[in-house]
């Protein structure tokens, strides 16, 4: 609103606040608002299929299924689980969507997701937000928005001819500090406990938000901002000095 050339909206989705900014399509502010609405609708649809809190979602059905079941899943679950499997294998299990309940006790193939143990539970919390951001960006572009951004609770992507300033939240005391500007790329931050019990604060920049989001978990888990996986995805990482660190 402070800049009339940008339509900027936020809604509670994916368990966080999702913000969408779209530079107004030439002379068509209603078309821009419609594009933003369509991008929110895309995220809502994705949430319906990927949330572990929704029994009928692809993930809800997988989690409720007995061992040896094969769950047919939609394209979004396939895209995210394919990436999750690749990251798990490449990170020696440091990236694990089962959160320890069976990192290798599931497999995705043409038929669906196979489950190899009753207790295996999938939680896409560490990667689905990034995918949702990528999908919302694709929707905006398909609707004719040339530049803008999508920010799902700190996992964000900017596209088009726009340099978006990034403010890094101080996770301990509150407030923000200017960290960087990003153009045509994604940036995600994580502040969580690694497997060694130490809380780390890490950010990753990558061309796609799915990778930025997921790779922050690898950096936190391995405490390695130079992890070899980063280069493979064209990513760059930072481990922030956090007063919360031991």
């Amino acid at each position, binding site marked *: 609103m402070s800049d009339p050339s940008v339509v900027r909206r936020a809604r*509670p989705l994916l368990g966080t*606040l999702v913000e969408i900014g779209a530079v107004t399509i030439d002379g068509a502010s209603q078309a821009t608002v419609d594009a933003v609405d369509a991008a929110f609708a895309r995220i809502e649809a994705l949430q319906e299929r990927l949330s572990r809190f929704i029994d009928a979602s692809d993930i809800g059905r997988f989690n409720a299924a007995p061992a040896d079941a094969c769950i047919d899943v939609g394209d979004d679950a396939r895209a995210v689980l394919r990436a999750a499997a690749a990251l798990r294998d490449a990170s020696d299990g440091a990236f694990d969507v089962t959160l320890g309940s069976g990192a290798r006790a599931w497999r995705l193939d043409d038929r669906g997701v196979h489950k190899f143990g009753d207790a295996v539970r999938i939680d896409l919390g560490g990667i689905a*937000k990034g995918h949702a951001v990528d999908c919302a960006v694709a929707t905006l572009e398909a609707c004719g928005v040339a530049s803008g951004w999508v920010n799902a609770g*700190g996992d964000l992507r900017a596209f088009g001819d726009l340099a978006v300033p990034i403010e890094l939240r101080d996770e301990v005391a509150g407030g923000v500090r200017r960290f*960087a500007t990003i153009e045509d790329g994604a940036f995600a931050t994580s*502040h969580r406990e690694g497997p060694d019990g130490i809380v780390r604060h890490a950010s990753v920049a990558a061309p796609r938000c799915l990778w930025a989001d997921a790779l922050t978990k690898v950096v936190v888990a391995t405490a390695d901002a130079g992890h070899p996986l980063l280069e493979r995805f064209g990513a760059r990482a930072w481990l922030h000095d956090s007063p919360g660190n031991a």
Partner: protein
Amino acid sequence: MRIVVAGTTLAALAAAPVSAFAIDYLTLEQAAQQMFPDADRFEPREIGLDAAQLQALDAQGIRGRSARWTVRIARHGDTALGVVVADAVIGKFELISYAVGIDLEGAIRQIEILSYRESHGGEIRLPAWRRQFVGKTQAAPLRVGDDIANISGATLSCTHVTEGVRRIVAVVAQARRNGSLGP
């Protein structure tokens, strides 16, 4: 991908001043119009909850919090289309105001965030800090050229907003039952 880091070192980041952050998305009027585009007016209506009604909400696991609510009834001519209710919640560091549009069947039509304020330090707990935003519909940008700045941080939980929305849906349902929303 092009990323330009503000400082040359992370030490420079640590030394950077901590600032607050504020964004206004929509005024309540704009949000209401978007939720009910066919409405030609929004009629304010006070809903008062008595002790028994607050207790009934408690029994549903919803803390009534406030005994007085202002709702806006969306009307096209004499026909009611639904209601819009605004509220604000505070989290660990943030103050979020939002509006909920509810149709005549009591179903949520839309939720829009109206504004977002992030404090630094413990100021969010200070009534004076919160009061400065009450009734404001549009704040000046923080710094010139920062209109599009985005926060990155560990995932912000929207639990407070979700709870607030549940509370509003319950309050509106109760008001409808006891007739205080009128015809």
